[in-house]
Structures are given as structure tokens and as C-alpha cells.
């Protein structure tokens, strides 16, 4: 390995810290502790869950599964899932390090989900909404035909019932194993949102860590309000691709939620613990604006 100058070494260490390793579960007999990705502090797993998976020490937001997110957002016992049996199809017979069909099965087993998004209807502080929640642990939350179809279906249901749409994104972008069809989902979902817009149905987009690529460049950026979780990576191209393209280091905080807020792409950066209240206020406005 090439020798690094001292400042380079510090910079590298800082970058590594920023990128962070996946959180570690420290298995200590009797207890389950989790090491924070950012501040490295060991947190009692139950405390972390009780705090919506936000580090009590440094405020780092761990990723939530789709189910956890729904539980944190929708009033208890009001959620009805829609189209839970939509499955991806390996129509290209695509094989990289594993066949796509196997990747799907593995992800299904790992997550208990049929694909990278769960959609449904429910209430948020008593207000009826349609909701879609992506799950990064299903093939990096990539958007293929199923994600596109489900976003479109929930948008069409909201149009039909005249209820607001909320989508939580967490996605690495288009699912390359579906080739051009994954790209076309950008067109499909955006077309569905264009109908909501014409009908003045509110659409709230919440971007969580990470939201990049074709997902950002379609439905995630099209909210009447765009909201983000603190520190979430949000962008068109991933930071590695940009670095390779322009051959220079990226400034600190680049493509983080606060950066997008500063550059006018995001209305609100909201901590997870305050998200539901924030959404309630916004929905309350739209509910009353529509009546008057």
C-alpha cells in the first residue's frame, strides 16, 4: 500500500468514519448490545428500539425496515397492506454473481417481504392516507417492476379515494437485473404522480438513508413537500461514481440531507422522533385547505 501523508491519513480515517461500517451486534451473553455506527457507543438493543433506532448518544439514524417504519408512522391497527403478493420476475434470465431469481428468493427469505416496498392504507393521527415504504434490506431497495407497479397502484388508489399519499424512500436506485424495464419504472411512477398533481391530491415524499439514482430522479423528488431524515445520503449519482468522474474528493457533508436542504431540494429535515408530528401538521393543512 502506498504511504499516506499524515493529513491524508486523517482524512481517510474521517471518511471511513463517515461512511461507517455496518452496525455491529455485540453478542454478550444475556444481553444484546449494538454498537453505534457513528459514535461507536454500545447501546442496549431494547433502548435503541424504544428510541426508534436513533442512537441516544449521537442521534445517528439506523435504517428502519418497512414494517418498523409503518409501525412508527401509522396509527395502531389501522394499516391494511395492498398487493402483498406482487413478485419480481427474472424475465432477462440475468446472472451476475448469482442468478437474479435466486437473489429474489434470498431477499424474500431475509426480509420476509415480497419486494423492496410495502404499500397500504392506514391512518396517521386519524387522517386516512395511502402509504408506501421502501426497505433497503431487500436488494438495496432497488426499483424494479414490482416497486414501480406498487408505487403506481398506491398513487392510483389515493387518486381514486382522494386521500394523501406518503412515500418513504430508501433505495440505491434502479434494479440493473431488470435492465431497461427498471428505467421505465421512473416514467411509470412519475406519470402516476402527475395525475395526483392535476387532481390536487397531496403527496409527501420522505427520503431516508440512502436515496439515490433512479428513485431520487423520479418519485422521491416529486413531493409537494420533500422531507428528509438527518444525515441521510440523497443524490442522483452515488458519491463514489462522482469521485471517479470528476477525480476529486467531495466536500464534507456533500449529498447529506442538510446539504439538500441548503440547496433548496428539501423542505424539512426532521428527526425520526418528530416525523409523525411533522407529517400530521402538514396533512392537517392539506385537509383543511381542501375543505375551504
Amino acid at each position: 500500500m502506498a504511504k499516506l501523508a499524515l493529513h491524508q491519513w486523517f482524512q481517510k480515517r474521517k471518511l471511513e468514519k463517515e461512511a461507517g461500517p455496518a452496525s455491529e451486534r455485540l453478542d454478550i451473553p444475556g444481553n444484546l448490545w449494538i454498537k453505534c455506527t457513528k459514535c461507536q457507543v454500545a447501546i442496549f438493543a431494547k433502548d435503541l428500539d424504544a428510541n426508534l433506532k436513533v442512537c441516544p448518544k449521537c442521534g445517528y439514524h439506523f435504517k428502519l425496515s418497512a414494517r418498523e417504519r409503518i409501525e412508527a408512522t401509522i396509527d395502531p391497527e389501522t394499516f391494511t397492506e395492498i398487493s402483498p403478493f406482487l413478485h419480481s420476475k427474472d424475465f432477462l434470465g440475468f446472472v451476475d454473481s448469482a442468478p437474479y431469481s435466486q437473489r429474489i428468493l434470498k431477499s424474500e427469505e431475509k426480509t420476509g417481504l415480497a419486494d423492496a416496498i410495502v404499500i397500504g392504507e392506514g391512518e396517521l393521527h386519524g387522517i386516512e392516507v395511502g402509504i408506501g415504504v421502501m426497505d433497503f434490506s431487500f436488494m438495496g431497495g432497488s426499483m424494479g417492476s414490482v416497486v414501480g407497479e406498487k408505487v403506481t397502484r398506491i398513487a392510483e388508489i389515493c387518486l381514486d379515494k382522494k386521500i394523501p399519499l406518503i412515500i418513504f424512500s430508501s433505495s440505491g436506485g434502479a434494479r440493473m437485473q431488470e435492465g431497461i424495464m427498471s428505467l421505465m419504472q421512473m416514467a411509470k411512477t412519475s406519470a402516476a404522480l402527475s395525475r395526483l398533481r392535476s387532481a390536487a391530491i397531496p403527496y409527501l415524499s420522505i427520503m431516508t438513508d440512502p436515496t439515490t439514482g433512479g428513485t431520487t430522479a423520479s418519485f422521491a423528488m416529486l413531493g409537494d413537500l420533500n422531507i428528509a431524515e438527518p444525515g441521510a445520503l440523497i443524490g442522483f449519482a452515488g458519491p463514489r461514481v462522482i469521485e471517479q468522474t470528476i477525480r476529486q474528493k467531495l466536500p464534507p457533508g456533500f449529498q447529506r440531507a442538510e446539504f439538500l436542504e441548503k440547496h433548496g431540494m428539501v423542505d424539512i429535515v426532521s428527526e425520526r422522533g418528530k416525523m409523525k408530528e411533522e407529517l400530521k401538521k402538514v396533512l392537517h393543512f392539506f385537509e383543511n385547505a381542501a375543505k375551504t
Partner: protein
Amino acid sequence: MPQKPNRVLLEFEKPLLELYKKIDDLKMQDMDMSEEIKMLEKRIETLQRDIFSNLTPIQIVQVARHIKRPTTLDLINLIFNDFVEMRGDRNFSDDPAMVGGLAMLPGCKKSNPLGETIFDQPVVLIGQQKGSNTKENIKRNFGMAHPEGYRKALRLMHLAERFNAPIISFIDTPGAFCGIGAEERGQAEAIAKNLRSMAGLSVPFISIVIGEGGSGGALGIGMGNRVLMLEFSIYSVISPEGCASILFRDAKKAPHAAEVSKITAIDLLEMNVIDEIIKEPVGGAHNNYKETALNIGSAIKKHLSDLARLSSRELIADRYRKYRNMGYFTEE
């Protein structure tokens, strides 16, 4: 006509080299060698026909990216009259990687009770612009537009809508640019907004992939009622090189990636992502700009006259149906 002095032959075209050399030699002679030259040219044509009817996907990628391939402005100037280029997004700057403007399409036909009338159709044009040499390519950022390019395109689309003019978009880009400025100014937002806006356009809209259809950067101006592709162009979610280095962990596997990702016009027609393949002249579009332009022009006229039958409402519904139906999944 082959362009003699700066002929650029691709690897698989090398068998032609010998014949071209012979022609060049004959032309240097004082005697009239036109008969011989004609024969050689015939042989070149046959050989080209042969080569180009058996291209592999990665070879098609090379033709699609050919440095002499006609660019958007080359084609605009050959197909349309009175092109007025418009510049700027009225917000940040102009983007030379995205061009557009007003033009007249001559020779359009309208049938009426008295027969047929021929007229010039006003159209709004947009398209990514590559250069045909390194200097131009640097100016044009290799056809990779920034957010201001997409916003300029959107401005033109809305103008078209207000004046009831059909829109023709020419797609030729490796992708939307990724860089610091592009992210700061909202590349994702610019493309997303274009997608949503294109879905709602009340005028006929035809998109034509003339070279490289690179991912979201291509789709960002490509949501036509009809999507057409030149025979040797490509359209993909990621470049074969990108796909190879991410999924196969080896950029050298690009030929394989090109194969399995299904990015050629024939593949995309089969999947109903595009509506028609426009034939290219023998030896590819770069071999004969005029013929290429002629083929594209007649395809545009045919589809415009079809779309002219639809009302604004029907055009929007037609577009919605087209994209709504895209995707393969099972439900059980």
C-alpha cells in the same frame, strides 16, 4: 458516401480497409478508373451489408458511439427548415449539452374531403448534443447535460404546449452529468420534474434514440407517445461498462453486460419499450447522413399524422397507458 480523408473504421470494419485503400489508389491515377471504382464500391457495400447484419451488441454500442455518427444538430439541419435555436433555462445558465428550438417540418400531409394537402408543420425540437471531435465534445460535455439542460428542455416543452406544436426529442447521451454542481443544482429533481411534466403534455410527442440512450439522462427528455430508435442505437439503464464493473466486478466484461442487459433496438422493440426501429443506411448512420435524415424524417411524419388524430386528453391518456403497462411481475 464514405468520407475519404478522415474515415474512422471500427475494429470489425477492418476487412473494408483493403478495399478503401484500393479505391484511394485508383483515384490517384490519371486514367479514368470510374468503372473499377464503381465495382469496388459495390463490393464494399456488399461487405458492409454483411458485417452490419451480424453485429454483436457490443459492436452496436461502438456504432452508436461512433465519433462520426450524426449528432442531434446534424439531423435537425437535414430534416427541418428554419431552425431557431433557443438557449438557457432562465434560471442558471445555458447548457451546450442540451439543444433545442423551433423549426418547420416540411412535407407533412393532411387528408381532407378534397384530397390531400401538403404543409409545413411547426415543431419544437430538443435533444442532447455530442461533439464530432474532442474540442467540440469538451464544449458539449460529451452530451452529458446538467440540471439547467433538463430545465431548458422543460421550458421548451411547455412552450410547445402553449402553442400546440408537436415535440420531437433526439436522445444521444451517455447519461446525465454527475458532478458537484449537478448535485447542488438538483440533477435528480430536474429529471424527475421532466418525467412528471412529460406525462402531462397535451401535444403529440415523439422521442427518437439516435445514438446512446443513457439511463435517466436519456429518459429525462424521452417520454414520448411514440419512442423510436435508429437501428444501431442503444438504450439502457446503465452503460455496459458500468454494469460490468458493478455487477460483474470487471469492466472488461462489458461485451457480456451488453449482451445480457438487452439494450439494442431489436431487444427493446420485443419488450415494447419502443414502437419502431428506423433503418440505417448501409454501413451505419455515419456512412450517409442524408439517408439517415430521410428515414428519420419519414418516420416522424408517419407518427405525427397518426397522433394528430388524438385530442389533448387522448394524447395524455395514450402516454399514461404506454408507461403504465411497463414492467414484468407475477401476482399470486
